[in-house]
């Protein structure tokens, strides 16, 4: 049996949503690990783009920053931010973007800016970065989060990046280039969106968790289909590749598994 940590499960699961040949926005952290894992396994021909300016990147080690020189080695072009976020992303060339968040609501809207009221924030988070741009313009959005009741909220403290906003028609109202969130992956389950209401819907539950576990950790009414399968486990190859990509355990956590 394959041994894996929660983080490894999450990364492996996220990577399975990347299709070969796609233009993928990498970022850093877990999303980047997922994208790199996909590139090293089932999706060797993805075009990995870092918003800082690297195109078709092939980093040998996992970069710690979107601007890390590790992104440069072997990339086919090294340009700038207007190129990646403007010419590529805003023009609709990005197939998949990855985002994390501190809070998500039932339409997949994301908060990465403030916890607490805007007027007197309790916690300043990183902010949008390229997140809002990616959420606005990537064709598909994969959201990765650790599962926690305080993160799956009915009302965001701050709406940083658009999911499906207020539901059907919302993104069209703002002529958004991208299609919005497609899947939300946590260490507990996978969720997608009900095509009619564009609200979050349970898709599969990870081994060791139940539907009830998920429901206990969501503060809105999660749509539960009749049939909720168990998520596939990572393969040994995936675990090995991740350990090779992140030898210092920066993303995977010290100790690896």
């Amino acid at each position, binding site marked *: 049996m394959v041994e894996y940590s929660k983080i490894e499960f999450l990364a492996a699961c996220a990577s399975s949503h990347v299709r070969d040949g796609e233009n993928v926005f990498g970022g850093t952290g877990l999303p980047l690990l997922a994208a790199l894992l996909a590139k090293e396994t089932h999706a060797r021909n993805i075009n990995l783009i870092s918003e*800082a300016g690297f195109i078709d990147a092939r980093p040998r080690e996992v970069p710690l920053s979107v601007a890390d020189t590790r992104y440069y080695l072997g990339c086919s072009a090294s340009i700038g931010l207007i190129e990646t976020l403007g010419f590529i992303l*805003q023009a609709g060339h990005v197939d998949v973007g990855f985002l994390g968040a501190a809070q998500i609501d039932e339409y997949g809207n994301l908060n990465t800016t403030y916890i607490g009221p805007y007027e007197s924030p309790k916690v300043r988070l990183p902010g949008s970065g*390229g997140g809002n741009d990616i959420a606005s313009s990537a064709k598909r959005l994969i959201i990765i989060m650790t599962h926690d009741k305080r993160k799956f909220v009915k009302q965001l403290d701050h709406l940083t990046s658009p999911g499906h906003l207020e539901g059907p028609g919302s993104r069209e109202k703002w002529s958004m280039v991208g299609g919005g969130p497609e899947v939300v992956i946590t260490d507990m389950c996978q969720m997608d969106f009900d095509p009619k209401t564009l609200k979050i819907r349970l898709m599969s539950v990870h081994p060791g968790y139940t539907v009830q576990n998920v429901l206990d950790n969501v503060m809105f009414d999660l749509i539960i289909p009749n049939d909720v399968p168990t998520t596939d486990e990572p393969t040994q190859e995936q675990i090995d590749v991740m350990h090779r990509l992140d030898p210092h355990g920066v993303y995977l956590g010290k100790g690896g598994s």
Partner: protein
Amino acid sequence: MVPDGSGLFWGGFGFQRPPIAFASELIRQKKRNLTIYTCGSEVDLEILVGAGVVPRLEIAFVAIEALGLANNMRRRVAEGKVEIEDYSNLAMAMRFLGGALNVPFMPLRSMMGTDMVAKSRYRGDEKLKVIDCPFTGEKICLVPSIQPDFSIIHAQRVDMSGNAQIDGIVGEDLEGSRCGKKLIILAEELVDEEEIRFAPEQTKIPAMYVDHVVITPFAAHPMMCHGYYDYDLEFLQMFHKITRKEETWQEYLDTYILGVENHTAYLDKIGWSRLNKLKAIKPRGY
């Protein structure tokens, strides 16, 4: 050189070429009330807001990326001592592009539908405007251009006349270097004019824009400079850890910034054997 109250475009992107030596010098000179404009910065913003130099920022991002939240920023915002006007990365880059082009605004398709449009920290109506496009009728977001008092850029090399070459990614530094009323370049090394003119395509910033040049090796430590040195991960982790508490941050401030006379003394304190180990290996660049 930089008067209190100035606005600064702040160069570098993520771990790449942040002008940290310049931030430390601003702190040593006890500057106050500076406003920072940038897409995102990390250690540099942490020390600037931590030391009380910068009460206002118009930015898209602050954190130490893979390492975690910006602790000093988090504390200063919670204390009400720092205000951030939030934009997205593309929005900030377009604001610099508009400033460089000397037009009053630029259009973009991000930010609409979110609290970045609905809420403003201090710019109010001047934060942005969502209009109906006069050509297509669709909604489009206009962001105001920025032409700050200074642009601060960290480049790999310059010649005597100020031509600056940047290797690797440029982030938003092309637009940012051109949008400021004055441009200050921190360069890792001074090279002969011939070397610049042999590869004019690498001259990302022609001398005509440049007002001041400071030759500053390891200007980005503990971050990286493409082709010159890698980030100092151990130091960075230490830095991130000490910023969690005000007391340990103040100790750091006293030791590594206020407690050294200048950037050279800082490098001496870090130690040259340590710095030399960070030097980039060719051709990989880190």
